[in-house]
């Protein structure tokens, strides 16, 4: 077994590397975009505008109440029909991944912000600080510490979820497994290779987030 894994790697490593590259950029794009969109959704939810809150709540309920694979199919089918320009499978899947993740990111950020003691907001207000300064200078810096660990978990989950894109043959790691597997019929060895690569990526990410978090704690105690 070890032998066939090694031989497969030697012959097809470039396929796996291509797949890894696909996974990395899919993850990077969806993590970044989902963080921005998620933060906006969280602010909408925290705003005092009733309608915004209701819209976001409805959106989040649907996203959380349906499987991610279904959502991928949905956007893959829907988007090419409604956008006035050509949209690749990959683009549709990226959009779907972002939409899905932003809902979870929003919840993490909202919870982190609300976990900051309301006395902090009151103190800032009583000093005559504007709501923007209160949020950016007092609440958010404290919320980050609540948000970051949960957000890190979310990011790692997102990296793993990009594997679902293989259903649509979007080039990424899991798709490279399919490619090698159908060329060689060596299913298990190629699966092991892909599994090891995923594991290395998520472990590096976990460690990186750990270090970042610890540095943050140290600067603020």
């Amino acid at each position, binding site marked *: 077994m070890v032998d066939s894994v090694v031989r497969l790697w030697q012959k097809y490593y470039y396929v796996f590397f291509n797949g890894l590259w696909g996974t990395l950029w899919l993850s990077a794009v969806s993590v970044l975009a989902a963080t921005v969109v998620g933060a906006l959704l969280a602010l909408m939810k925290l705003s005092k505008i009733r309608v915004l809150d209701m819209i976001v709540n409805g959106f989040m309920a649907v996203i959380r109440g349906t499987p991610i694979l279904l959502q991928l199919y949905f956007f893959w089918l829907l988007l090419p029909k409604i956008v006035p320009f050509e949209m690749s499978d990959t683009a549709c899947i990226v959009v779907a991944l972002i939409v899905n993740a932003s809902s979870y990111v929003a919840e993490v950020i909202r919870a982190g912000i609300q976990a900051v*003691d309301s*006395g*902090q907001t*009151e*103190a*800032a*207000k*009583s*000093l*005559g*600080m*504007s*709501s923007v*300064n209160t949020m950016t*200078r*007092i609440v958010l*810096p*404290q919320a980050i510490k609540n948000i970051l660990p949960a957000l890190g978990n979310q990011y790692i989950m997102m990296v793993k979820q990009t594997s679902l894109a293989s259903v649509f043959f979007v080039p990424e790691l899991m798709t490279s497994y399919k490619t090698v597997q159908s060329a060689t019929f060596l299913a298990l060895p190629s699966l092991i290779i892909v599994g090891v690569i995923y594991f290395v990526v998520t472990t590096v990410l976990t460690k990186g987030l750990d270090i970042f978090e610890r540095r943050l704690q140290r600067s*603020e*105690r």
Partner: protein
Amino acid sequence: MSDNRVLIRVENLHKSFGELKVLKDITEEIREGEVVTIIGPSGSGKSTFLRCLNMLEKPNGGKVIFEDVDLSDKKVNIVKHRQKIGMVFQLFNVFPHLTVLENITIAPTLEKKVPKEAARKKAVELLERVGLLDKKDEYPSRLSGGQKQRLAIVRALAMEPDVILFDEPTSALDPEMVGEVLDVIKDLAQSGMTIVIVTHEMGFAREVSDRIIFMDDGQIAEQGTPEELFKNAKNPRTAEFLSMVL
């Protein structure tokens, strides 16, 4: 004192939390330079009354007129007016992610555009005044309760407010730290600062107050000089309350 100009005028103030009526038609004046203490049983609305003065609680009815501006008016930019109304909280609410010095300078530099250097200089002066200068670069987690509260007081002072509201400033402190905080407030009172304070420290109230307001069941049941209230309360509820706490 009664000749000084009126700083805060409260007119027919009402406040409810859901069904519960917390403040029932309160009318009151605070004059410049006055030290007013609010006492009363818990749940009588003291803190809510105080928090209505800077709109941390929005009244359901009535007016809070501060320096001729009705703060309850939705068109008023409350942020600007709050800069002149300092507040000190029971649980300190110092900013844990900022150093002692930054706690003091953040509001003046951001909101009043005081240059960083000037704000620092002023903060250092204030810290010296309350004996915290050696802590200026520490984070609040390294301070005792009494030190945190002294920090909270000078943080409010750094905005150069016209009045400071104290909401049970010593209730969360260990007994041995109450004195150091009360001393700072006493100093402040003697310097002519207008002060409204909710407290259970009756000895302190008696010593520093120009006027004591006794609140009961969302209303002002009685008020007068410490002498009047402590020696011969007219309202039986006041007498009963005082006999219990003294």
